[in-house]
């Protein structure tokens, strides 16, 4: 064996990230979704500089101005104004901040405890497993939005409590997913090999097994990001979520529903923002699943 063989081109393995991107970019829908999400993230990060007006400033002379392409539209207000004369475009841009914050915070707040509970349930199948799983079954037996409403009713409405409510509601799916994935991995020889090599229990849980269970969890996290945005909008619409005048998309919908016949844009545009962002995230989640799951690779 000479050193020249070790420099052979065929032996230079592509980095995992490159491989992932190669698989991901084949899915056009997912790439579009990713692009739209990046746009929303950009809007959210730089909202005060991008938005043409302050989201709470009321232009009393321009109540319910239609969008610019309709008769009576003003260039000053590209997407029109709402019932109090606030610029819709600015409110939607600022709303992106809240939606992303709610999505991110609730995903993190349910992902981390979900993984911990799932790992415990599968590594201690006699001690903790049944208890944790029955608790999750009880939580799954309640309609998710109803449970969220109940939690908000107990904690009181508001941004932080909305995040907590959504995080608690989406916890069971993470626990079940983690447990299922870990149970599948535990039967593999490499886990036994790690035990043999002297791995301690925490090392076995977090270093050996967990990284191999991340693919379904990442996908679930993306998809529940979108359902968190939806749930937050629903709670806001019911008046239990973020309170006005904060520009949250669901709250905007709720306060505008009286004008649905006179000024359609006040209701439609925030709704469209919700729809598009949820759709984009779902498309990206789909692409992520295809790229991360070797069984589905090259399926389409």
């Amino acid at each position, binding site marked *: *064996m000479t*050193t020249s*063989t*070790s*420099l*052979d081109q065929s*032996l*230079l*393995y592509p980095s*995992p990230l490159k491989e992932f991107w190669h698989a991901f970019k084949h899915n056009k829908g997912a790439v579009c979704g990713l692009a739209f999400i990046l746009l929303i993230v950009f809007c959210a990060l730089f909202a005060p500089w991008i938005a043409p007006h302050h989201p709470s400033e009321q232009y009393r002379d321009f109540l319910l101005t239609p969008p610019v392409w309709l008769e009576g539209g003003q260039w000053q207000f590209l997407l029109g104004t709402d019932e109090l004369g606030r610029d819709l475009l600015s409110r939607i841009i600022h709303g992106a901040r809240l939606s992303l914050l709610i999505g991110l915070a609730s995903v993190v707040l349910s992902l981390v405890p979900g993984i911990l509970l799932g790992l415990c349930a599968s590594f201690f199948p*006699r001690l903790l497993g049944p208890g944790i799983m029955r608790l999750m079954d009880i939580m799954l037996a309640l309609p998710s939005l109803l449970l969220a409403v109940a939690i908000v009713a107990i904690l009181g409405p508001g941004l932080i409590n909305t995040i907590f409510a959504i995080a608690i509601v989406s916890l069971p799916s993470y626990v079940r997913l983690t447990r299922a994935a870990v149970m599948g991995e535990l039967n*593999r*020889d*490499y886990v*036994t*090999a*790690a*035990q*043999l*090599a*002297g*791995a*301690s229990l925490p090392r076995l849980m977090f270093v*050996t097994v967990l*990284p*191999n269970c991340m693919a379904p969890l990442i996908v679930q996290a993306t998809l529940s990001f979108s359902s968190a945005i939806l749930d937050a909008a629903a709670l806001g619409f019911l008046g239990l979520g973020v309170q006005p005048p904060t520009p949250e998309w669901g709250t905007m919908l709720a306060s505008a529903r009286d004008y649905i016949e006179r000024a359609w844009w006040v209701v439609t545009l925030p709704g469209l923002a919700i729809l598009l962002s949820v759709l984009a995230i779902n498309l990206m989640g789909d692409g992520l699943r295809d790229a991360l799951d*070797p069984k589905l690779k090259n399926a389409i």
Partner: protein
Amino acid sequence: MSLLDIHNLSVRFGGADAVPVVDGLDLSVKKGEVLAIVGESGSGKSVTMMALMGLIDAPGIVHADCLQFDGTDMLRLKGRQRRHIVGKDLAMVFQDPMTALNPSYTVGFQIEEVLRQHMGLKGKAARARALELLERVEIPGAASRLDAYPHQLSGGMSQRVAIAMAIAAEPKLLIADEPTTALDVTIQAQIMELLLNLQRDQGMALVLITHDLAVVAETAQRVCVMYAGQAVELGQVPTLFDAPSHPYTEALLKAIPEHSTGAHRLATLPGIVPGRYDRPQGCLLSPRCPYVQERCRQQRPTLDEHARGAARCFFPLEVA
């Protein structure tokens, strides 16, 4: 003194009245010896080794009069102490190389991990040693394979990496659990040769679990034939193959395809290993044994020593 001493090992799953998977097994391995454990599927070969490593979880129950490795009682060891011995002095190679490596980490990382844990090597030293080990197990282009993930390797290469990991801490006893079953024939020969070379060079003992008698004939010094959780015959390699004293060993040898070239059909042993509900009252082989007699159906034989080894049979073949 022998390296590994097992006396009267029993493993049961679920309750003290459950049928034992391993039943009163005695086994010893000397330093630098190659012992083969053969038997058909479900005869308790792998479970024996799992019990030795302390990897039988509830509801499994392990019981033994003595389970000693290198002077340490393996049954008494707990947590940290066990982890210190198992993996360093006692290592294992698995059957399926495709699942034996962790898919999330590179090959190099996984070998270095063992080195860090048991040899106290860090950073560059660990990497250099990992490279050395990969070259030791004859992986072509070893330097670039360090950064490969397991899915980028073939089965034979994965098995070589698994062997490299097993010998990384220079164990005194290597257990190979059907190391060639999942590989094709040409690779099988290479892997066996590699294992034997390593065994000879490092002077470690090797326990080879297999159901391939051809492999046993070429490699092992002593053989333990297991059937339904019991050792039915113990013996040295050439003699056991020339003149088996237990009917089950004889049947195994007859069933080697190479032995039945010619017109007649391959010899087989009718029936299956007795399960939980059809365990015979007498000798466990009695429903399938071609030489069965009335006494075999009534009483269980014990493992009795004779001139060339030991056999669990009332009427051993060709001993008299």
